[in-house]
């Protein structure tokens, strides 16, 4: 059995590799698709697929970078440099594995915890932190990254993705408009409306649900009876259920799902089973609602450790790990520097950013604001 594919076979927009994970998954009684066990052993399916060494190294590096940024940002929040931070700790594989399986031009609508996916798309640490430092509502220009602004009202972005994909159809493009959301957001009407319309209209949307088990303090068994992938299937979507802490499986599953969407066979959904290791945000206290045992269980399923074990079993060069470690140190320095160098916003600019066309009330209020600022500066 060949475990290593060389040279690497990165995501191409077409041709998912056999066998069909959709068929395997839907024919199984239960349980998500898994290529690598928590201990780092390949499953039978994983062995059948084999491991693309270059892909594995890329995914591991992506995850390591995300985790380092996450922990630096947490420290910055504790030091008062950020007002709030929402960690993606634990969800790195679900994000990195899925976003890497897309074409770089596939437009992505994130929710608000997709830091790992954002980094893969090239969003800079400073741009990512701006929102949480309170200097911007959205720190980056979405166009160049094909990565939209974060959405804080849960699930709303699933409809934006559906509309964007309608436009893609009208343009005759073959992109896979991709949207991230969570197990909690799936209770929102917007998500269900997006499932329904995209299925009815055969609209090319790929839904990625990171089921991280918690919506702040609400566990999934309070949130729903039928899992998200089951509900999506009921709407007529092609669905997949994957171990979201298994980057290789998430990648393969997403690649197959994306190919379905790209072929014009309608929308698809990947539910990636994962875990939010930190609290909802730096203001949250998860000890009030979950146990150390929960944490330990999922700690043992850590996505980075798992892939590291695979990489080491493939005799990955030691220099790969040492060079990565150096890169992470540089990233940490960059995160801290970029955060502190973020310029404060200028209220005056908001008067120009709200409307495109001239607006007399905005003009009048801007004038009043400037006069007041001038008056205050004179009195100083």
């Amino acid at each position, binding site marked *: 059995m060949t475990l290593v594919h060389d040279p690497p076979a990165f995501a191409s927009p077409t041709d998912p590799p056999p066998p069909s994970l959709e068929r395997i998954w839907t024919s199984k009684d239960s349980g998500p698709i898994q290529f690598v066990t928590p201990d780092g052993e390949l499953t039978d399916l994983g062995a059948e697929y084999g491991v693309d060494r270059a892909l594995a190294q890329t995914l591991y590096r992506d995850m390591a970078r995300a985790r380092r940024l996450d922990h630096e940002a947490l420290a910055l929040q504790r030091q008062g440099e950020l007002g709030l931070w929402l960690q993606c700790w634990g969800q790195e594989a679900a994000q990195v594995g899925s976003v890497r399986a897309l074409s770089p031009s596939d437009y992505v609508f994130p929710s608000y915890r997709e830091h790992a996916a954002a980094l893969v798309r090239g969003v800079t640490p400073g741009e990512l932190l701006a929102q949480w430092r309170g200097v*911007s*509502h*959205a720190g980056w*220009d*979405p*166009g160049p990254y094909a990565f*939209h*602004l974060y*959405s804080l*009202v849960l699930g*709303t972005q*699933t*409809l*934006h*993705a*559906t*509309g*964007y*994909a*309608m*436009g*893609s*159809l*009208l*343009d005759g493009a073959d992109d896979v*408009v991709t949207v991230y959301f969570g197990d909690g957001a799936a209770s929102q*009407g*917007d998500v269900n*409306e*997006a499932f*329904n*319309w995209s299925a*009815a209209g055969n609209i090319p949307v790929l839904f990625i649900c990171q089921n991280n088990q918690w919506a702040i303090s609400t566990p999934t068994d309070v949130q729903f009876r039928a899992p998200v992938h089951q509900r999506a299937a009921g709407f007529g979507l092609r669905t997949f259920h994957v171990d979201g802490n298994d980057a290789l499986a998430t990648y393969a599953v997403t690649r197959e799902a994306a190919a379905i969407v790209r072929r014009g066979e309608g929308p698809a959904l990947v539910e990636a089973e994962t875990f939010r290791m930190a609290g909802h945000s730096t203001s949250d206290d998860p000890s009030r609602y979950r146990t150390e045992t929960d944490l330990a269980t999922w700690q043992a399923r850590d996505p980075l450790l798992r892939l590291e074990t695979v990489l080491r079993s493939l005799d990955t060069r030691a220099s790969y790990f040492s060079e990565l470690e150096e890169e992470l140190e540089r990233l940490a320095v960059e995160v801290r520097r970029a955060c502190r160098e973020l310029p404060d916003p200028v209220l005056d*600019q*908001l008067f*120009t*950013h*709200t*409307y*495109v*066309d*001239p*607006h*007399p*009330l*905005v003009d*009048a209020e801007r004038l009043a604001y400037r006069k007041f600022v001038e008056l205050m500066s004179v009195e100083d």
Partner: protein
Amino acid sequence: MAGSPTAPPETAASTTMTLGRALNAGLRRAMREDDRVVILGEDVGALGGVFRITDGLQRDFGKARVIDSPLAESAIVGCAIGLALRGFRPVCEIQFDGFVYPAFDQIVSQLAKMRARSGGRLSLPVVIRIPVGGGIGAVEHHSESNESYFAHTAGLRVISCSNPSDAYRLLRSAIRSDDPVIFYEPKRRYWDKGLVDLEASPASLDRARVLRTGTDLTIVAHGPTVHTALAAADAAAEDGFSVGVVDLRTIAPLDMETLRRCAEKTGRMVVVHEASTFMGIGAEIAAAVTEGCFSVLRAPVLRVGAYNLPYPPAKVEDKFLPDVDRLLDTIDAALSYRGKART
């Protein structure tokens, strides 16, 4: 009706049509001029909408551009946002005023704010058409006047048309605008006829229109109550009072320049709308005119609107809606106002 104060000058391209047909003509023109204009809403295709405003458009422009949506208002607006992000100019139809609330978050938190939160990088040229107001004997939730909710939200423009000519010209401007526009259509006036100049330029989205000049008092109205205001001004004239009428056309932003000019000229102002007066557009106009023109006012700016109650059953809506008599009664109060003497 040539000669009426609302009619534009007659030209070769002028045709008499109903307000509803004028909107249809405006949509058709916009779709012909710009292939990025798409329509989405419930029953807008084969049926042409419940009021037939999109009649024939799907036949002529295809199902790809005139999109029948599932019965989900939040999805209509949410998907319009996505279409706009991809470079389209979506025009949404909300079937009735009272059905817009499921889309409230998409309008107020998403559509209105996305440009500002993007630092001015994104623009959202989305129009949301809403048939508004009462007076058609409808069942519950089909007669609401909810303009204040949207006027209160920064990032939106709120337009209200009152006659066929403006319906045509304002709708074309709304679709051309790069800002999100809530476009109110006075449903009980859909069948009112008037002259429409199909070659007229699109109207400004931030100018009110003085329909009738007066010297004693100015009535400020929009949408369905403009007709009421003109009738009241006629009646007041019979009693010897010179009453002007301003059609707001734009609720957000308000054309304060025109309102101040009228207030300065007449010293008295009455605002009329179908929405309840409490926290309504009239309250904002009264405050803004008082702030800007206090020294010239000869009476407080008074308001006529619905009572602060849920819209009543159809059989009593005539008593609920502001009519000519209630408007005249308030005009009388403004004209006879005497400030309390200082002691």
